[in-house]
């Protein structure tokens, strides 16, 4: 399931428990600086074998999951 893998990647990156991450968890809650944000996107790209457009609107975990699902199904991110 895409959400579980996204949550796991986020959890590993931040050193937190994946169980605490929900679809509505906002990106602001992860307190990512600009370097972290790009590194996280690159980690997700590696995890799923996709490319994510950095200009995509990503405000919460659900946004990210939708982008990944769209990419995996062959649509543009």
């Amino acid at each position, binding site marked *: 399931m895409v959400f579980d893998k996204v949550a796991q990647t986020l959890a590993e990156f931040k050193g937190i428990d994946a169980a605490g991450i929900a679809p509505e968890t906002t990106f602001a809650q992860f307190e990512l*600086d*600009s*370097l972290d944000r*790009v*590194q996280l*996107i*690159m980690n997700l790209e590696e995890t799923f074998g996709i*490319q994510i*457009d*950095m*200009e995509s609107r990503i405000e919460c975990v659900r946004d990210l999951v939708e982008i990944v699902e769209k990419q995996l199904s062959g649509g543009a991110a």
Partner: protein
Amino acid sequence: MRTALCELLDIEQPIFQGGMAWVADASLASAVSNGGGLGIIAAMNANAEWLRNEIRRARALTQKPFGVNIMLMSPFADDVASVVADERVAVVTTGAGMPTKYMRAWLDAGVRVVPVVPSVAIARLVARSGACAVIAEGCESGGHVGELTTMTLVPQVCDAVDIPVIAAGGIADGRGVAAAFMLGAVGVQVGTRFLVARECTIHQNYKDMILAAKDIDTATAGKRLGHPVRAMRNAFMREFVRREYDASISNEELEAYGAGALRLAAREGDVKNGSVMAGQSSGLVKKEQPAAEIIREMMAEAEALLKGGGPLCG
């Protein structure tokens, strides 16, 4: 000395002048370009009209290619990004953010895009978005800085991308250039040494402070705001640091305290109450010289060092 970067950008020497706010105007940029390097005009927080005028002024002063640096946190970033495309500037460098939203327009206009990158991930991202080279800038540099040093960042970026890498941060003489090339870079970006170029129009007090600097005279501050800055340790810097560690002062108040401080030092010459941004290499900068002479001296020294490396290997 010619490298792949010279071929790519049609310049004689693989040396960029850093896009320093309130410093890098048409005067300095054209002098560096006339000296064989790539001069760069800093768009800083200026508006489109100011930048267009500086570009036209530079074109009147040099026939050689020059660049524009876009500070992506600028409130006028969209406007000045459009000017770069409209004016078909040879090269645009970017800092303080991700340039991806502007890259299509720049590439379509034939502008070469060379972002400043503080990490491997950002280098990879801009490379795949169409950057023709990247500037890997270590935290020895002046102004906005990242976490990694030039020594560690440059080789890791070189390993990660297949476009030319320009090293920046801490490079102020031929030894730095030679070291950067050994790390895998094919060019260097130099800021601090050009602060004291004769054609640099900053206040003499600023230049004098750099010329008198010792190795330990710079420090970073502003990490709490998410964009730390390296500058000389003067009264302004000490007070900024005091406020940064004062929990009763909000981030907005801290930002407000720093606003206008660089202009105060660079243009008004108040090097006590202004921000004298400069790199750790300030202690290496000993004399005011024409930009062309700085370039010649640095590159000749680097070439001699690189040619003389044999004895180290027995």
